[in-house]
């Protein structure tokens, strides 16, 4: 057995190893959390079930399935990250890890890796279930590429907004507000309900929301279309979110 030796021999592991280790740890913690699982899978699966067995009252799978994929990205990119980060800040996790070789940038990179892994897992499960329930998308290479680009921009935007919120407010306030924003934009943010179904006076406002941009692009992609405006909307939001997170984030409670 190796012997304990307290003589100093400090050296950081390679950056890739550090970021992967952090990503793996956050991923495990996210998927073990029951509340996160509710947001990530149970609610989206429930909406898919309503689409399949609701007799058309809640919309068809052609609209609901891509909308649910958008919802999954929204819940994991924004709500889960905001709540988890708020408590990491409160519990001193961020303070401790910022003082390790992981550092602030490694912590953010690892966190992003964990979110991407969760989102990919969600999309695979939800898309497979939707297909089993009868969803038959008709994407083209271009529409898939546009959807992928918008999904990446959306994850970056949502994580940035989540960090801006969690880095500023108390953990309990973040928990409440992140859930409230989740529900408000789920219903009124063009995420699950297409923008065209909102009152005409509201449509120009809803179209500027990042959730609406994501929902519209994924629904269009399933029909083989690629839209340009969601890319522009999300690019603007990504810059805004990054600036807000950079300016407002505090590592300590």
């Amino acid at each position: 057995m190796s012997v304990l030796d307290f003589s100093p021999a400090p050296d950081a592991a390679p950056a890739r190893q550090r970021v992967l280790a952090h990503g793996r740890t956050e991923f495990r913690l996210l998927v073990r959390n029951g509340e996160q699982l509710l947001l990530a899978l149970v609610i989206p699966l429930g909406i898919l079930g309503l689409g399949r067995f609701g007799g058309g009252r809640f919309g068809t799978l052609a609209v609901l399935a891509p909308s649910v994929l958008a919802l999954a990205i929204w819940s994991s990119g924004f709500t889960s990250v905001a709540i988890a980060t708020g408590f990491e800040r409160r519990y001193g996790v961020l303070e401790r890890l910022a003082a390790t070789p992981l550092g602030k940038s490694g912590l953010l990179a690892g966190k992003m890796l964990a979110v991407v892994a969760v989102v990919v897992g969600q999309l695979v499960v939800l898309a497979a279930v939707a297909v089993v329930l009868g969803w038959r998308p008709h994407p083209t290479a271009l529409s898939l590429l546009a959807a992928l680009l918008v999904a990446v921009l959306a994850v970056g935007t949502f994580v940035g907004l989540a960090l801006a919120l969690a880095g500023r407010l108390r953990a309990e306030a973040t928990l409440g507000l992140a859930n409230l924003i989740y529900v408000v934009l789920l219903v009124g943010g063009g995420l699950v309900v297409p923008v065209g179904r909102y009152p005409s006076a509201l449509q120009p406002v809803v179209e500027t929301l990042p959730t609406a941009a994501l929902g519209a692009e994924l629904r269009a992609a399933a029909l083989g279309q690629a839209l340009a405006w969601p890319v522009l909307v999300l690019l603007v939001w990504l810059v805004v979110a990054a600036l807000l997170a950079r300016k407002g984030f505090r590592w300590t409670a």
Partner: protein
Amino acid sequence: MNIREPAALVVDAVSVGFGDRLVLDTLTLQAQPAALTAVLGPNGAGKTTLVRCCTGLVTPDSGRVSVLGHRPGSAAAAARVGLMPQSTGAWSGIRAGELLRYLASLYANPQPWSALVDRLGLRPFLDTPYRRLSGGQQQSVNLAGALIGRPELVFLDEPTAGMDPHARRATWEVLRELRAAGVAIVLTTHAMDEAEALADAVYIVDGGRVVVAGTVPELTRGGSSLEEVFLAHTRVRAA
């Protein structure tokens, strides 16, 4: 107190204000390799802000901090420093063993994991989620986390708070071994007996300033205990 070079930690006339409140006021101290430096002060004296200046989480308004010759928070400094924060410092749902394996993976030459676990008595609760550990067990895990990267300089913020007397004495023994191995230790504590038993240098801080400093024999030369010296030089604050 003699100042030796090169010090592991140099805090030179550091001031930090939050709004109208001056938290650190031209605070100056040093910590040497192979020595335990105790920073004593009442609640609100600025000890936690001092540690945050040394880990790069708070940027001083004026003054200079040098951590092993590097800027606080820089990659070169972070790789060589161990931190045991005062607050919990871990995800509530992570298992103790999982946390330590993760922290070990951030370093190229971590302590042999199993040996450190046995030395600090962590094995019985390695599979317990952090939130279910007692306060003393959490402190032991945090201490292991601070030492796992074989640091040159460790910051220990109230390291024995919540520990039972056995665990406390065992921790003191670990700190003595660290010092003997050449590690620079910066310890913030309210426990006067801890400082008296362990410290090579003591800085008593109040209102963000060092109000008195010296070795324990120097500070207690007039026959006063360290606690009496502390009480004589610090003020009571409203809770």
